[in-house]
C-alpha cells in the first residue's frame, strides 16, 4: 500500500470540503473494497477521507412508503433491522448474504453502491426495488446511477447520503454465490409493485441492469412459468475463466424464476 494522508470527516460538510481541497482524495466508508484495492496498488490516492463514523449517515427509518437507509449503515445493521425485515425482507436477506459476518460488521450500503462492483449485491437490489440514491447534490434513480463497470453517475465531489427504497407488495432476492469469493456470480431481485414488476440483475453484466423482458412477462403474470421461455441475451454480459456469458444469461433466468417463486 502506498502511503496517503488520512482524515476523519466529522460530518458531511467536512467530507465535501476535504474532497474538494485534495487533489486526489478518496472517500472511505467501511473500507472493505478500498483497502484491498490500495493493498494491490490498484489505487494510490493522495488522501483517504474516512466518512465511516459520520453518525448522521447511519440508520434505517420508514418514511411514508419508503425505507430510507443512511449511506454509512453497515450490512449487518440492514440485515438485522426490524424495520427492513418487516417492510422489505428481501433487502434484509440480500444484506445478510454479503461477504461474511466480519465483513458485514464493516461494509456499508453507500460504499457498496458508490464502488459499483459488477458482482456486488446492493446494485442489483437497488435496480430491482427501484431505489433512489440521494447525494449531497441531488436524487438519482438507480436506473441512472449504475452506468458501467465500477462506474456510477456520481460526480467527483458528490457524496451518497442515503438510499430510499419504495416498499414493494412482495419481493425476493436470489443469489448464485461464487463459492470462493462470496460475490454474486448472478444475483436477481424481483419486486412486485402496484404498477408493475421490476427485475434487477447483478453479476451478469458490467453493471447492474433491469431484465425488461422478464419484467414485461411478470407484470402480466407473476409466476415462474411466465418467464420460463423468456431468454436473456448473452450479448454484453461478462465472461471469465469460471463462467461464460451464455452461462450467466442462463443462470440469470434460473435466479429470476427462483426469486419469483420465493416472493410467492
Amino acid at each position, binding site marked *: 500500500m502506498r502511503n*496517503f494522508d488520512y482524515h476523519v470527516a466529522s460530518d458531511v460538510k467536512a467530507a465535501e470540503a476535504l474532497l474538494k481541497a485534495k487533489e486526489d482524495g478518496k472517500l472511505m466508508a467501511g473500507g472493505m473494497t478500498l483497502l484491498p484495492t490500495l493493498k494491490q496498488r490498484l489505487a494510490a490516492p493522495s488522501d483517504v477521507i474516512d466518512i465511516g463514523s459520520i453518525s448522521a449517515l447511519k440508520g434505517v427509518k420508514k418514511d411514508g412508503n419508503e425505507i430510507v437507509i443512511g449511506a454509512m449503515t453497515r450490512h449487518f445493521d440492514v440485515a438485522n433491522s426490524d424495520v427492513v425485515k418487516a417492510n422489505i425482507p428481501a433487502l434484509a436477506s440480500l444484506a445478510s448474504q454479503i461477504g461474511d459476518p466480519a465483513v458485514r460488521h464493516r461494509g456499508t450500503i453507500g460504499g457498496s453502491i458508490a464502488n459499483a462492483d459488477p458482482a456486488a449485491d446492493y446494485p442489483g437490489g437497488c435496480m430491482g426495488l427501484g431505489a433512489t440514491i440521494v447525494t449531497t447534490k441531488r436524487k438519482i434513480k438507480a436506473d441512472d446511477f449504475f452506468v458501467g463497470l465500477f462506474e456510477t453517475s456520481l460526480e467527483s465531489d458528490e457524496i451518497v447520503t442515503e438510499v430510499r427504497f419504495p416498499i414493494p407488495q412482495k419481493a425476493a432476492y436470489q443469489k448464485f454465490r461464487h463459492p470462493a*469469493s462470496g460475490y454474486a456470480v448472478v444475483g436477481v431481485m424481483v419486486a412486485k409493485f402496484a404498477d408493475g414488476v421490476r427485475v434487477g440483475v447483478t453479476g451478469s453484466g458490467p453493471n447492474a441492469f433491469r431484465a425488461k423482458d422478464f419484467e414485461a412477462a411478470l407484470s402480466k403474470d407473476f409466476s415462474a412459468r411466465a418467464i420460463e421461455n423468456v431468454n436473456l441475451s448473452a450479448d454484453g454480459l461478462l465472461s471469465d475463466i469460471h463462467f461464460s456469458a451464455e452461462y450467466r444469461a442462463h443462470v440469470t433466468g434460473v435466479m429470476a424464476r427462483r426469486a419469483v417463486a420465493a416472493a410467492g
Partner: protein
Amino acid sequence: MEVKLTVNGKPVTATVEPRTLLVELLRDQLRLTGTHVGCDTTQCGCCVIHLDGEAVKSCTILAAQASGRNVLTIEGLAKPDGTLHPMQEAFREHHGLQCGFCTPGMVMMGVDIARRLPGADEKTVRQELEGNICRCTGYQGIVQAILSVVNPAAVKDHHHA
C-alpha cells in the same frame, strides 16, 4: 500519526503511518502475535479480532480507524490467571484445531457467534464461519466446539459421554 486505543483492556498510544493496518500495529508494534495473517485479502479470517465487541478482520482496517476504540485480541480472552475462556476451553475439549494457524480467528469468531446467535443450530454455525478458513481439520471439531458453547444440545460427538 498518533493513535490512542484500548487493547485488551489497556490504554495504548502508538505512532503509526496512515497506511498501517490494525493487524500490523497489533503484531509488529505491540507484539501481540496471537492474531495471525493468513491471506491479507479479507478472506481467511485468521486475523479476526473484536472491535468494540464485534468481530472484524484486522488485516482490512487501518490502525487509524481503530483510534479511540476498544480492541480485543486472542491474548485478551483468557483470565489473567490463565483460566481459558469457555470458547477456548471448548476448542481444546472438541479438538477444534490441528496446526493452530486459523485458531485465534476461529475462536474470536466463535465468541462473536455465541454473542449474536445464542442457540444457533449447526447449519447456522457453519454459515457464520463463511469468512474463516481452516486447511487442516475439515471444520468438524471447530463446529462442534462452537456449538458446544452456543447450543450444547446440538453437539453430536459427546466423546466423553
